[in-house]
């Protein structure tokens, strides 16, 4: 490219300089604010604390409801909130299911509908799940109930956060 074909007028050059400097200053001011606003979305998710919920001796083959308290840290609020788990044993295995319906978040109950015994039933839109938590075809939920992260120590069941399957 020769000098001749590449003409930049004085006015153009100055306006590029102005746009460059102006753009830099605007970016310097706006970037921290944008990152500040995006923080909750970028920092989502944390580690889980385990809470003691049930004694292994109390568990049966039939899912039983256990309520427990967790400490929730919500920005500058710390509070106790209650959680529920449906826990049962199958041979040596222990399974703890979350009661939150995977359709739109209502609360499911075990064996709560006469027409559908031995299933988890959601009253909101008649969602149903098998004992294993598997969603039953042709009901609204599209994936199984979440399971709790679990640890068993000295005959006690400890639950952490829920895990999607």
């Amino acid at each position, binding site marked *: 490219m020769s000098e001749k074909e590449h003409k930049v007028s004085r006015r153009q050059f100055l306006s590029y300089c102005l746009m460059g400097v102006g753009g830099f200053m605007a970016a310097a*001011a*706006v970037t*921290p*604010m944008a*990152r*500040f*606003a995006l*923080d909750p979305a*970028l*920092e989502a998710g944390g580690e889980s604390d385990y809470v003691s919920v049930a004694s292994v001796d109390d568990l049966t083959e039939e899912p039983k409801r256990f309520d427990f308290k967790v400490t929730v840290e919500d*920005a*500058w*609020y710390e509070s106790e909130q209650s959680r529920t788990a449906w826990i049962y044993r199958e041979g040596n295995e222990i399974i703890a299911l979350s009661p939150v319906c995977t359709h739109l978040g209502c609360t499911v109950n075990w064996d709560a509908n006469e027409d559908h015994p031995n299933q988890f039933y959601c009253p909101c839109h008649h969602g149903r799940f098998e004992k294993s938590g598997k969603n039953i075809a042709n009901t609204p939920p599209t994936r199984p109930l979440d399971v709790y992260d679990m640890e068993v120590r000295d005959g006690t069941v400890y639950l952490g956060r829920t895990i999607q399957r």
Partner: protein
Amino acid sequence: MLQKIYDWIDERLDITPMWRDIADHEVPEHVNPAHHFSAFVYCFGGLTFFVTVIQILSGMFLTMYYVPDIIHAYESVYFLQNEVTHGVIVRGMHHWGASLVIVMMFLHTLRVFFTGSYKKPRELNWVVGVLIFFVMLGLGFTGYLLPWDMKAYFATVVGLEIAESAPVIGGFAKALLAGGEIIGAQTLTRFFAIHVFFLPGALLGLLGAHFYMIRKQGISGPL
């Protein structure tokens, strides 16, 4: 690309005359620092506006985390400063900008004073400028309470005592500003509302009037 988008819109809406009318005008020699370096004093008005824009932007972002409640205000400020990424920077912009805007406004006022720019026909713009000055002081006063720490609280106690010392209406003025007898929950919500809605609204209106008059009357002549 940008040119194409601009042309596409301009072809349909004819926007060129609109911005030309607002933005495209000669900068007289005596206010252009490229001609006389001392003309940089004419930049203070624009710099005041620049800092004001920063205040409004950073303030809008602060309200994403801040709560005007006496139990949680301090902790929400602590949280947004120390736990949220870049919180120190955003709060720092608002905190230091609040002082800087007063400095810039003062320098701008000095320029207007010493160039005699307040004289006929620009008296009204001086009046509007003084109103802007009071609105800025109001923003500083109400904003200062919001972190709800010791300094904030006692600064407001003193400020409201000053209001109370006014003859005749003093007691009424104090109760109105504090939202009652106690400097507490209602004072904080009131100051918050005044700080983020009422005064910025008034400020934008006054700035509009200020700039309209400048555009209409042009910048004042050389000394």
